[in-house]
C-alpha cells in the first residue's frame, strides 16, 4: 500500500528507514521518525475511533499531547496498553494498534445508535438516570452502556517491564524546549547553573520546528539544533526528550515522566520502559508553550476537522498532507501559515477568515501566492460522516450574529484556528493565581507562588523576539542569583512576521432550522447544547457545570475545550470570562502509566525483605516462610507430605515433651544506657523498675497516654546503667520512636541513650522440659541449674568461643531460655544447638507452633494487644503499680475503663471438642436471636491445643471475669458457622505457671 498523502520530500523523518505496522488488522508502512498518527494520515487513514458518548466517528484533531480523539490500544512485545495517543506514540517496526471504544468495529459501530438517541444522553444523563427506578438501570441501561463504552482494555497479565524512579536536584528545571526553553537554558547554563531541560516530544525545538522564522541568520530549526548540541556538551546540563514534566508539587518539587523505551519495539536489556523523575529545583522555568484553540461550528467533530497548527506540523515535521483539498478556517493569522505551507507543497487551500478586513505581512504573502481568501466568512457545518467531504460556509455579519446565504464547497479537511491558549497548567498547579489577559482572550500566570517563572507563549507572549529576550534575561538573572556568575549573552537578530489582531469570535451561530451538534469537548462529547441545558437547569459555578456536563473531564483534561466552555458560559450569563473563572488544574498534566507511578515497588520489591542470619539453614531444612511485617519467618518445617496443621502440631508437641528451638531474631531489641535508664523504664512501663537487680529480667507492659496497651516485652538489666529491652516484632520501630519522643521532648533532663540493636543480635529460643539439659551441653562451664540461672535470670557466657547472652525467659509456658549471639554468629549458634540437641530430640519450630504454645498458655500477643484493649482486658492489671506514675496512668480513671462489665480475656473451647473456631468470629448468647444479634465479644486467636488435643481459642469477652463456665455460641457469618462453646480460663496449660520455674 502506498503512502498517498506523503510528500515526495521534506519533513524530519528518516526516509531511508521504512517501517511496517498494523492498524485494525491491516498492514501499512511509515518511516522512522513518524508518529502512529502521522503514518496513518500518510496512508489516508482518518477514522481511528468512536467518541465516548455518541460513538461518532473520530479522526485526528491535534499532533501531540492535546489530542482528544486518536486514542488507541497498543500492542508491543506481547503486551498491550490502553489509552495511547496515536499523536504521541512513535512508530516502530512491527507496531500493532487497534481502535478503542467501538464495537464491533470502527466502521460499523452499534454504539452510534446513541447518536440518534440523543435523548438518552443529554447533560447530566448519569445523574438523572441514577434517580430512575433501579431495575430499569440494571436491566436496560447499564448492560447497554457497558458493552459500548470505555476507552481500551487494561492487560490482566503481570507487567514484565521495569519502571524506575529517580531523584534529582538542580538549580533550574526548564519545562519545554521551544524558543523560550532553549534561550533560558542556554543563558543559565552559560552562567554555570545546573540545568535540566525537559521536552515531551522526541524532537527538541517546539514551535521552531514548524515556524517560518530566522534567528541569528539561521532558520529557527537550525538555531534550535545548534543550541541543543551545545547544551548536550555541557557538564552542568541534562537534556531530556520524551520527558513530560506533569506535576508541580509543594516546595518546588516537580515530577517528570521519561518514556525511555516506548518508542522501541522492545525495551533493551537492563533499561526501564519508563522512568519517573522527582526533581527538586531551586528555580523552575515554565516554557510549555500554547495550544491552538478550536473554532466551534456544526459537526466540528467530523474526522478531517483539525487544528491548523497540527496540519502544519504534519506537513513540516512528517512530510504528510492531512488533505489535498484543504479549507482553512481562522480568526487570526496562524491559519495563514498553514495555508502557505499547503501552497508551497502544491496544494491549493481556501482560507475562510472571520475577520472583516485584516491586514498584515502574512496575509499579503498569502494573497501574493494566489491563495483564495474569503474574509467575513465562516464554516457553518462540516459535511460527511466518516470524513469531511464538503463544508457549508456563509458570510457572517460584522456583529457575528447573522449568517448570509449558505454555500456548499468541496474540501477534504478543515483546518481550524481560534487563536492560542497558553499552557498554564504547571504554573497553576504550583499555586499561581492566574489572571485573564483580555488581548489574547485567555488566562496567563499571575504572581508566582513558588519559585516559578513562566515564559513565552505559556505566558501569553506570542512574538518570537519578545519571547527570546524575556527568556535570555530570565535564564541569566535566575542563574546569577544562584551561581553569582554574570555572563552576558548577546541577543541574536530575529526575523519574524508581524501578526495582526485576532478576532474575538469563536462560535458560529446556528443557522435557522438546523440543529447541528457543535462540540466543545471532543473526548467527552460535550456540545454547546449541553452547557445550555446545564445553565437552564440552574448550574452556575463553573466547577458544577464541569461536573454536570463532564466538560474538560476526559483524559485530555480539556486542553482544547476549557476556554471555549468558559467563553460560552460567560456569553450566556452575560459575564466576562474572568468573572466565570476557570476550573482548577491538577496534576498530572497528561495521563501517566500506573507502572511509572509504582516504579520498582512491585511484588517482592514493594517492601524490603528482612531475613535472619539463620535464614539459609531454615531454607535448607524445608521451612515454609511467612511474612511477619517485613521479616520472613519460618512458619513451619515441613517433613514429608505434612500439612501446616500436622507440622505445627508436631512441632508444638515436641516443645511440650522434649525441646524445641525457634528463631526469635526478629524480636525488637533496644539498648538503653545511662544513669537514668531505670527511671525511664519506671515511667514507660506500668510496673516498678527501680529495684530490678543486675542480671535479672522483668516482664513489662507499656501504655499509650490514652491508657491503651501499646506493647509488652522483657527488659534485662545487663549492668548498673545498661538495659536490654525487647519489644514485639511489629511494634519495634514505634517503641523506639516512643522512647525518643519522651527523652527528647518531655523529659530531656533524663540522662539516657536509646538505640535499636535488633540487627545486632541473632536470637534462638530453646523451650521444653529438656531445654536445661541442652543448655548444659552448650555452656558446660556455666551453672545453669535452677539456682544458678533461675527464672527471669540472665548471664553472659561463651558458646564455644562466641560471646553469648542467656536469658531465662519463656513465651511458651515451658522451661525455656533465649540465647543471643552477635548476628554474624547466628548460624553457628543455631547449628550448634541442633547438633548438641539431637540426643534430646530437639526440633525447630515455626511461628505457627509458637502461636499455638502461647495461645494455650494464655500469653497475650498482637491479636489481643490490638490498640483497643487496656491492661485489665488482657489480664495484665496485676502489673499496674499503685505507687508511681507512668505514661497513660491518668487515663485509667476513665469511666469506661472501670465499668463493672468490662471486657476481659478468656479461653474458649467448642463443646464438641472438634470444631475449630475461626479467628474474628463473634460470641453471642443466642444463636437464633434476630439480627443484629448482640455481640458479647470476639475470638482473637485460635489454635489446636496440643496439651488437650482439642481446639482452643482466646477471646476478648464482655464481663469475661464472670463468664467462666458459661455456654455461648461462636458465630462466623463469613464462614457460615455457628459453634456452641464453653468459656474457660485463658490459662489452658499450667495455670499455676510451675513449668517455667521448674
Amino acid at each position: 500500500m502506498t503512502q498517498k498523502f506523503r510528500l515526495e520530500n521534506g519533513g524530519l523523518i528518516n526516509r531511508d528507514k521504512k517501517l511496517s505496522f498494523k492498524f485494525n488488522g491491516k498492514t501499512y508502512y511509515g518511516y522512522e521518525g513518524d508518529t502512529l498518527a502521522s503514518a496513518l494520515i500518510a496512508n489516508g487513514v482518518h477514522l481511528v475511533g468512536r467518541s465516548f458518548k455518541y460513538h461518532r466517528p473520530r479522526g485526528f484533531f491535534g499532533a501531540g499531547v492535546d489530542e482528544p480523539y486518536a486514542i488507541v490500544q497498543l500492542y508491543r512485545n506481547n503486551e498491550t496498553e490502553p489509552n495511547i495517543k496515536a499523536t504521541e506514540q512513535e512508530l516502530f517496526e512491527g507496531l500493532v494498534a487497534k481502535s478503542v471504544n467501538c464495537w464491533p468495529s470502527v466502521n460499523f459501530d452499534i454504539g452510534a445508535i446513541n447518536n440518534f438517541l440523543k435523548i438518552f444522553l443529554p447533560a447530566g444523563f448519569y445523574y438523572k438516570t441514577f434517580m430512575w427506578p433501579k431495575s430499569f438501570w440494571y436491566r436496560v441501561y447499564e448492560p447497554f452502556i457497558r458493552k459500548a463504552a470505555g476507552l481500551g482494555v487494561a492487560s490482566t497479565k503481570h507487567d514484565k517491564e521495569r519502571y524506575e524512579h529517580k531523584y534529582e536536584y538542580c538549580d533550574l528545571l526548564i519545562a519545554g524546549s521551544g524558543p523560550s526553553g532553549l534561550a533560558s537554558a542556554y543563558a543559565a547554563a552559560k552562567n554555570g547553573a545546573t540545568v535540566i531541560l525537559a521536552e515531551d516530544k522526541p524532537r527538541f525545538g517546539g514551535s521552531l520546528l514548524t515556524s517560518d522564522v530566522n534567528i541569528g541568520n539561521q532558520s529557527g530549526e537550525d538555531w534550535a539544533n545548534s543550541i541543543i548540541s551545545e547544551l548536550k556538551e555541557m557538564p552542568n546540563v541534562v537534556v531530556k526528550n520524551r520527558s513530560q514534566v506533569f506535576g508541580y508539587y509543594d516546595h518546588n518539587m516537580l515530577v517528570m515522566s521519561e518514556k525511555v523505551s516506548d518508542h522501541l519495539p522492545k525495551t533493551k536489556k537492563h533499561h526501564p520502559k519508563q522512568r519517573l523523575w522527582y526533581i527538586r529545583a531551586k528555580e523552575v522555568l515554565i516554557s510549555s508553550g500554547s495550544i491552538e484553540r478550536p473554532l466551534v461550528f456544526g459537526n466540528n467533530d467530523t474526522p478531517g476537522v483539525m487544528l491548523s497548527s497540527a496540519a502544519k506540523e504534519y506537513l513540516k515535521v512528517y512530510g504528510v498532507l492531512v488533505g489535498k483539498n484543504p479549507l482553512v478556517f481562522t480568526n487570526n493569522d496562524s491559519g495563514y501559515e498553514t495555508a502557505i505551507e499547503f501552497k508551497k507543497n502544491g496544494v491549493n487551500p481556501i482560507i475562510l477568515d472571520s475577520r472583516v478586513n485584516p491586514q498584515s505581512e502574512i496575509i499579503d504573502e498569502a494573497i501574493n501566492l494566489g491563495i483564495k481568501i474569503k474574509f467575513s466568512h465562516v464554516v457553518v457545518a462540516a459535511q460527511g460522516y466518516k470524513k469531511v467531504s464538503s463544508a457549508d460556509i456563509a458570510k457572517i455579519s460584522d456583529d457575528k450574529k447573522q449568517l448570509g446565504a449558505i454555500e456548499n464547497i468541496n474540501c477534504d479537511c478543515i483546518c481550524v484556528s481560534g487563536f492560542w491558549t497558553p499552557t498554564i497548567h504547571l504554573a497553576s498547579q504550583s499555586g499561581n493565581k492566574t489572571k485573564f489577559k483580555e488581548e489574547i482572550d485567555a488566562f496567563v500566570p499571575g504572581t508566582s507562588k513558588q519559585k516559578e517563572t513562566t515564559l513565552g507563549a505559556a505566558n501569553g507572549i506570542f512574538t518570537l523576539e519578545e519571547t527570546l529576550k524575556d527568556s535570555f534575561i530570565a535564564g541569566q538573572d535566575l542563574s546569577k542569583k544562584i551561581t553569582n556568575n554574570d555572563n552576558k549573552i548577546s541577543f541574536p537578530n530575529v526575523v519574524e512576521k508581524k501578526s495582526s489582531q485576532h478576532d474575538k469570535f469563536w462560535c458560529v451561530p446556528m443557522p435557522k432550522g438546523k440543529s447541528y451538534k457543535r462540540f466543545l469537548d471532543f473526548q467527552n462529547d460535550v456540545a454547546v447544547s449541553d452547557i445550555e441545558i446545564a445553565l437552564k437547569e440552574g448550574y452556575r459555578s463553573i466547577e458544577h457545570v464541569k461536573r454536570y456536563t463532564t466538560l474538560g473531564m476526559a483524559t485530555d483534561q480539556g486542553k482544547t475545550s476549557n476556554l471555549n466552555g468558559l467563553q460560552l458560559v460567560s456569553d450566556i450569563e452575560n459575564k466576562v470570562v474572568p468573572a466565570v473563572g476557570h476550573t482548577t488544574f491538577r496534576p498530572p498534566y497528561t495521563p501517566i502509566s500506573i507502572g511509572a507511578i509504582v516504579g520498582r515497588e512491585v511484588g517482592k520489591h514493594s517492601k524490603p525483605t528482612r531475613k535472619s542470619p539463620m535464614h539459609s539453614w531454615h531454607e535448607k531444612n524445608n521451612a515454609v516462610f511467612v511474612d511477619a511485617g517485613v521479616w520472613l519467618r519460618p512458619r513451619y518445617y515441613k517433613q514429608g507430605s505434612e500439612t501446616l496443621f500436622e507440622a505445627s502440631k508436631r512441632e508444638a508437641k515436641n516443645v511440650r515433651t522434649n525441646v524445641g528451638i525457634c528463631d526469635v531474631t526478629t524480636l525488637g531489641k533496644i539498648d538503653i544506657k545511662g544513669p537514668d535508664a531505670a527511671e525511664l523504664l519506671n515511667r514507660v512501663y506500668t510496673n516498678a523498675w527501680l529495684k530490678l537487680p543486675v542480671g535479672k529480667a522483668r516482664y513489662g507492659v507499656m501504655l499509650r497516654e490514652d491508657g491503651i496497651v501499646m506493647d509488652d516485652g522483657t527488659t534485662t538489666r545487663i549492668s548498673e546503667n545498661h538495659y536490654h529491652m525487647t519489644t514485639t516484632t511489629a511494634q519495634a520501630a514505634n517503641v523506639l520512636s516512643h522512647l525518643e519522643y519522651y527523652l527528647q521532648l518531655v523529659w530531656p533532663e533524663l540522662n539516657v541513650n536509646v538505640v535499636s540493636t535488633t540487627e545486632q543480635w541473632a536470637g534462638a529460643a530453646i523451650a521444653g522440659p529438656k531445654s536445661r539439659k541442652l543448655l548444659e551441653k552448650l555452656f558446660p562451664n556455666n551453672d545453669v541449674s535452677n539456682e544458678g540461672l533461675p527464672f527471669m535470670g540472665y548471664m553472659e557466657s561463651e558458646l564455644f568461643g562466641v560471646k553469648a547472652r542467656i536469658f531465662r525467659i519463656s513465651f511458651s509456658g515451658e522451661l525455656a531460655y533465649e540465647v543471643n549471639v552477635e548476628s554474624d554468629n547466628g548460624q553457628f549458634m543455631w547449628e550448634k544447638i541442633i547438633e548438641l540437641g539431637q540426643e534430646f530430640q530437639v526440633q525447630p519450630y515455626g511461628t505457627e507452633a509458637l502461636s499455638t504454645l502461647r495461645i494455650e498458655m494464655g500469653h497475650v500477643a498482637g491479636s489481643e494487644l490490638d490498640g483497643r484493649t487496656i491492661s485489665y482486658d488482657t489480664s495484665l492489671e496485676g502489673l499496674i503499680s499503685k505507687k508511681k506514675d507512668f505514661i497513660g496512668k491518668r487515663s485509667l480513671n476513665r469511666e469506661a475503663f472501670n465499668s463493672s462489665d468490662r471486657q476481659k480475656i478468656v479461653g474458649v473451647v467448642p463443646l464438641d471438642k472438634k470444631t475449630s473456631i475461626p479467628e474474628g468470629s463473634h460470641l453471642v448468647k443466642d444463636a437464633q436471636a434476630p439480627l443484629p444479634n448482640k455481640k458479647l465479644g470476639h475470638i482473637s486467636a485460635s489454635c489446636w491445643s496440643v496439651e488437650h488435643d482439642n481446639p482452643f481459642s482466646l477471646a476478648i469477652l464482655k464481663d469475661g471475669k464472670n463468664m467462666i463456665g458459661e455456654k455461648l455460641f461462636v458465630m462466623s457469618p463469613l464462614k457460615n458457622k455457628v459453634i456452641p462453646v464453653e468459656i474457660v480460663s485463658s490459662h489452658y496449660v499450667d495455670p499455676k505457671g510451675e513449668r517455667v520455674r521448674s
Partner: protein
Amino acid sequence: MLHIKCPHCGMRSQNEFSYGGDASVKRPDLNKEISDEEWDNFVYNRKSLRGKHLELWQHLSGCRQWIKVERDTATHEIFNTYKADEEIS
C-alpha cells in the same frame, strides 16, 4: 512532597520524616494532681488550625531527632524549624 530543614542535618525530603502533631501541647508533670478536663485536653483535644502551626516531626530516616516545624497548614509554607530544646522566637 515537602522539603524540611532538619536543624541537625539540613534540607531533607518529607519521606525521611514522620509527623508528630501539635508541638505546643505540654505533657502534665508526673505525679501531679490534675482535673479530668486538663488531662483530656492533653490526650485528645487539638485545634485544627488553618495557617501557622507549630508542629513536631521526627527525622526518622536520618538523625532520629524530634524537631519543631513552623508550617502553614493551608499553603505548606515552612517558616522555620527548631531543635527540640531550642527557644522559639
